[in-house]
Structures are given as C-alpha cells and as structure tokens.
C-alpha cells in the first residue's frame, strides 16, 4: 500500500488531503481495535471455563467434549447448506446475467435482492411452522427406501425439525447473497471475451464455460465465503428450527441432532450464570476463530485464483 503513494506524500499536502487520510486511517485502526477488543473480551470471559477442571464443565468431561458436538453441528449444517446453495446460486446468477431476457432478468434480480433482506427470524418461523412439517413425508420416504445410506438412517423425525431441514433453510437464506454477488461478477465479464468465444464458434454454454466462469471464479468464491459466514453464524433460524438434543451423528433425519454453536449460545444464555456463562462465551470464542479461519482460507483461495495479484 505505502509503495504506491509516493506522489501523494512527496508533494505539498493540502488540508483536505490530511483530513481525509487521517479519518481513513482512524477508521482502519478503529476496526482493528474493535476486533481486538471482541477477541480479548471473549478470551477473558472464557478463561474460567477453559481452565476449570473437566468435571465442572457441562457434561462433566471437559471443554473439548462439550464443544465438539456443537462445533460438528455448526460445520455440518453449514457445509450441507453450501453444497445445496452454491450450485443453485451460480445457476441463478448465470441465468440472470446471460440467459434471461432483459426485462425478466431485472425483475428476477430485484426479487433475489429482496430475498436477501428477509430477516432471519422470518425464515425461522417459516422453517418450523411450514417447511419442516411439509418435509415429514419426504423424510419418512427417505428413511424407508434409502435407509441403508447412513445419512438417511432414520427413524424419521415426526416434526421434521432435523439437521437436513436446518441446512435447507440456511441454503435458502444464503442463496440470495451468493447469487446477487455472483451475478454482478458475471456481468463484469469483458464483452470482448464473450464475443471472441462466440466468433470462434462456441455455443452459449461453451462461451460461459470458457469466458464467463473463469473470469468470475474468484468472485464466486468470495460470494460463497460470505454466504458460508452467514450460515456458520446464523442463530435465530437454527434456534427455532433445529431439534437440538445433543449427540454427534451423520443421521440427517432423526430428532436427535447436535446444536450449532450460535444456537447453543442463544438457547442457554438467558439462564446461564458463572461457569456456564464462561462455557458459552468459550463456545463463542471458537465460533469467532472458526470464522477467522474461513475468511483466511477464502483469502488464500481468491489470491491463488488471481495468481497472487491481490
């Protein structure tokens, strides 16, 4: 950054420049301070739980045993949601940017943006009162016919409030974020690349495959990471929809599911005091670190895609 600004620092600086660079720097420092503050707060408040003897932690077997199921729940819901949402989101984005007639694409664009603005509690209520119940017959069918796959082992939940439902709700929630951003990236594809591909005799699909997708790949990855961030941290919808009764399981259809970190905190915070509160904050610290890791990974991916030019 500093190497690119010799012209600015060299000449006579005007007051406006100084004020602007001052406020910009202050903003940058502020965000770092806030982040450090949150991290320090979590660490300090979680400290009693991290150092407490194992038998005083909920479950009586220490922090790792307590945290592992909810970390697992967080990851599995987010991963399934991503697997379901990303392909569909990219499809929507491509349709809007390259297939749909202009008028339709604009309307669709607005609708997708609107979806992104629906509050998560609304998704939660919809998920638990409409979606989950309507999925019960499907789950029963899956458990009966595909029960040999461990994922669908069943017995199917009578209320449909399972990991799979949560993942589907999360997928719907992150869909607009990913598709809105991807659409913008796809629209940025240089016209010349597209026309060149067409001129070489490519079909529209081949044009997209060779010109649009490679150009937009890093943007789609960034968009997906934003979506993943929301899926990992989503609290309200998961709390409402998931039947969080503990246990680590890959069985997606039963009533017994691990909670996610955010849901665990939201569920138990109101009645928590002392060490229990520290445990929950420690769980928050883990989620904080997890989101950091995800962001770093995304940065690394994007950088590699662009050949290190970021």
């Amino acid at each position: 950054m500093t190497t690119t600004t010799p012209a600015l620092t060299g000449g006579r600086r005007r007051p406006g420049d100084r004020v602007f660079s001052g406020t910009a720097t202050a903003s940058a420092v502020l965000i770092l301070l806030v982040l450090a503050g949150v991290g320090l707060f979590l660490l300090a408040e979680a400290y009693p739980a991290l150092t407490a003897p194992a038998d005083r932690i909920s479950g009586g077997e220490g922090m790792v045993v307590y945290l592992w199921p909810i970390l697992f729940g967080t990851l599995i819901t987010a991963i399934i949601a991503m697997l379901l949402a990303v392909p569909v989101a990219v499809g929507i984005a491509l349709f809007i940017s390259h297939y749909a007639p202009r008028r339709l694409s604009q309307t669709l664009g607005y609708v997708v943006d609107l979806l992104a603005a629906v509050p998560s509690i609304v998704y939660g209520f919809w998920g638990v009162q409409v979606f989950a119940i309507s999925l019960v017959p499907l789950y029963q069918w899956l458990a009966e016919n595909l029960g040999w796959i461990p994922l669908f082992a069943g017995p199917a939940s009578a209320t449909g409030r399972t990991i799979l439902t949560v993942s589907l709700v999360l997928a719907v929630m992150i869909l607009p974020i990913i598709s809105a951003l991807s659409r913008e990236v796809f629209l940025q594809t240089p016209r010349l690349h597209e026309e060149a591909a067409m001129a070489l005799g490519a079909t529209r699909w081949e044009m997209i495959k060779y010109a649009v997708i490679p150009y937009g790949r890093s943007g789609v990855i960034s968009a997906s990471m934003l979506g993943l961030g929301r899926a990992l941290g989503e609290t309200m919808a998961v709390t409402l929809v998931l039947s969080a009764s503990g246990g680590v399981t890959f069985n997606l259809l039963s009533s017994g599911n691990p909670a996610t970190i955010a849901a665990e905190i939201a569920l138990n915070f109101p009645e928590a005091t002392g060490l229990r509160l520290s445990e929950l904050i420690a769980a928050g610290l883990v989620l904080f670190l997890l989101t950091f890791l995800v962001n770093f990974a995304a940065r690394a991916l994007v950088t590699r895609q662009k050949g290190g030019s970021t």
Partner: protein
Amino acid sequence: MRSSTTRAARAALATTSAAALALALASCSAGNEPSGGSGGGGGSTPGSSAGGAAGGGGTINGAGASTQQAAFQAWIVNFQEAQGTTVTYDPVGSGDGRTQFLSGGVDFAGSDAYLDDEELAEADGRCTDGAIDLPVYVSPIAIAYNLEGVEDLQLTPAALAGIMAQTITNWNDPAIAESNPDATLPDLPITAVNRSDDSGTTENFTEYLDATAPDAWTYGVVETWPVEGGEAAQGTAGVVGAIGAGNGTIGYADASQVEINGLSSALIQVGEEYVGPTPEAAAAILDNSSRVEGRPEGDIAIDLDRTTAAAGTYPIVLVSYQIVCKGYEDAEVGEQVAAFVEYVTSEEGQQAAVEQAGNAPISETLRSDISASLELVTGS
C-alpha cells in the same frame, strides 16, 4: 436506467430516514411527559394516596424468570392504576435475575429457584437485613400429547419417566396399555419432546421424575435436558409447537400454553387416582408440602412433596418466587416493593395473573404467611 434507479433509491432513503427521525423525536417527547409528571410528585393521580403506605409515583425495577412475565403484564398495569407506582420487569431468566438483584441492579428478582446458601450470604451484603424468597406464582406443568384417537391418556410416573428417558419407545407398550384399558393405542413410535434451552420447567419436571420414578429416571434433577436423541425445542412455545406439529408426540410444558393451543394433557397417577393439571390440584401441592428448614426469618422456600398421595393433588408444578430484601437502603423503595408483593399475592392480584397467564392462584394459608413475611420488609 441504473442512474435513475439509484436516484429513486436515494430519494426513498431520504424520505424514510426523515420519517424515522420524526418518529424518534415524537416518541422522545412522548416518553418525557410521564417521567416529568412523576418527578413533580405524581400529582396527576389523585387516587394514589388511597392505595396505602407506598404513596404515589416512583419506580421499582425487577428482573428474572420469564415464567412470571405474562402475570407481570397484568400486575404492572393494575398496580400502577391502584398505587401510581411504576414497576418494570425484565424477563432475563431466573439466574440472571438473581445475579442482577444480588449486585444491586434491580430492587427485586423473580426466580424459579430460591436463593441457595451462597446467594443468601451474598444477599447480606446487598440488603441491610438479608433477603427472603416468597412463592407468589404457581403453575402446573402439563404433560401434553398429540395422539390421534386417544383421549384422557393416563400415565403412571414410571411410564412417564420411561417415555421421557426413551426406554419406552412405542405407544402400544404394555406399560402404557396397563393404565389405559379402554383406549386403543396405535403402533406408533413415541416422539418425546423436551426443552432445548436450560429451563426451570425442565428442572421441576425432572425433580418430579427423580422423586417418583427413580428406577426409570436415572438422570437426576437437571436444568439442561440430559437425554440425547429426543425432539428438542426452544421455550414453552417451541415445545408446544413441536408437540402440535407431529403425531405421536408427548412433552412437558406450562399448562396454560397447552390449553391455549388446544392440546390434550395426560392424567398422572397420584396415589390411587389419575389427576390432570387443574389450578386447584396444582395449588393443593403447596399446602401439602413442607417448608425448607434453616432459612432466614420470613423466608418461605417450599420443599415440594412430589411423591404425595393426597387426593386431588397434582405434583408436577412450577413454583416461582419473588426475591426481596428485608431491608432496603432507601426505605421508600422498600415500602413500594412490599406494597407491590402484597398486591401480587392478594386475591385480586392472583386473579389478575390467572386471567393473563392461566396459572394457579395461591391458597389463603400461603397468602397470610406471605403477608406476615412482608411485615419484615416494610419494618426496616
């Protein structure tokens, strides 16, 4: 095209923010009026002095169990009308309420559990003369179920414990059939619904199971549901919703909510008969139980006799306390708190709560005991 939409969006934004600002200002000025009025001595409520010792105006703050939240909605309005004192109640949860009370953040706490010895010691520092627990809110916990074609399900404590511990997993299990000779029980898996959040309801329910069926229920008395793999839902509303949503579900929830949502409640075996969660049967358990011993003077902590065999008694109840100081540093606050709890436990106050929250009113005996305890609060 793009620039015009941006302009439109900007204009819309400006309008909404202006409207929001106007609203905020309006609510600000509206909010100022009553506080200005009470600052002037509450002169606007001429009837306030008739209410008793606590004079008009002033505010007392409470926080704690969400159990009492619905009742508080009625109590706050009625008490304000009768005495002119403003009462606030923040339903942050029992644990948080006790913490806030002990640290001096609020004037009284609502709690589903009475203060333990450690907290009592802490209260000696917070209050001038220690704190006491007063049971002001009794609510039956219903065993709600959703099973097509089966009415008036009757359960023994052992069968109930087996169902909740997931050792009894089908509705046609002999343990259930035995106590329901007239019902046709379907061959359907049981979905046992429990709270996914830490809860006083869970604690009271497991206390009942632990006392009456220790062989079938081996998890002890806990606030966090201990059995993995059941259907778990957040809060009373979540549990009631989950029971209503599936066929073959059963769970425990506040009786008033069960009734409102049109679910049936199972009858539980007490002695020789099967009893439902009626207000009368729930209130009876308090009178049939003994008080916890070794508590400070005036404290009424109840050691519920869950194993009672007395006729017409429903033992799965939740008792919620209001925790107050015996002596407040500000005598006026003390008087107002005492007047408020006096009102809450009065026949009128209890009736108001029943209408709002559907709980069980406390008995005459308990009312006079609480009244005697409140003498200590006003006395300082």
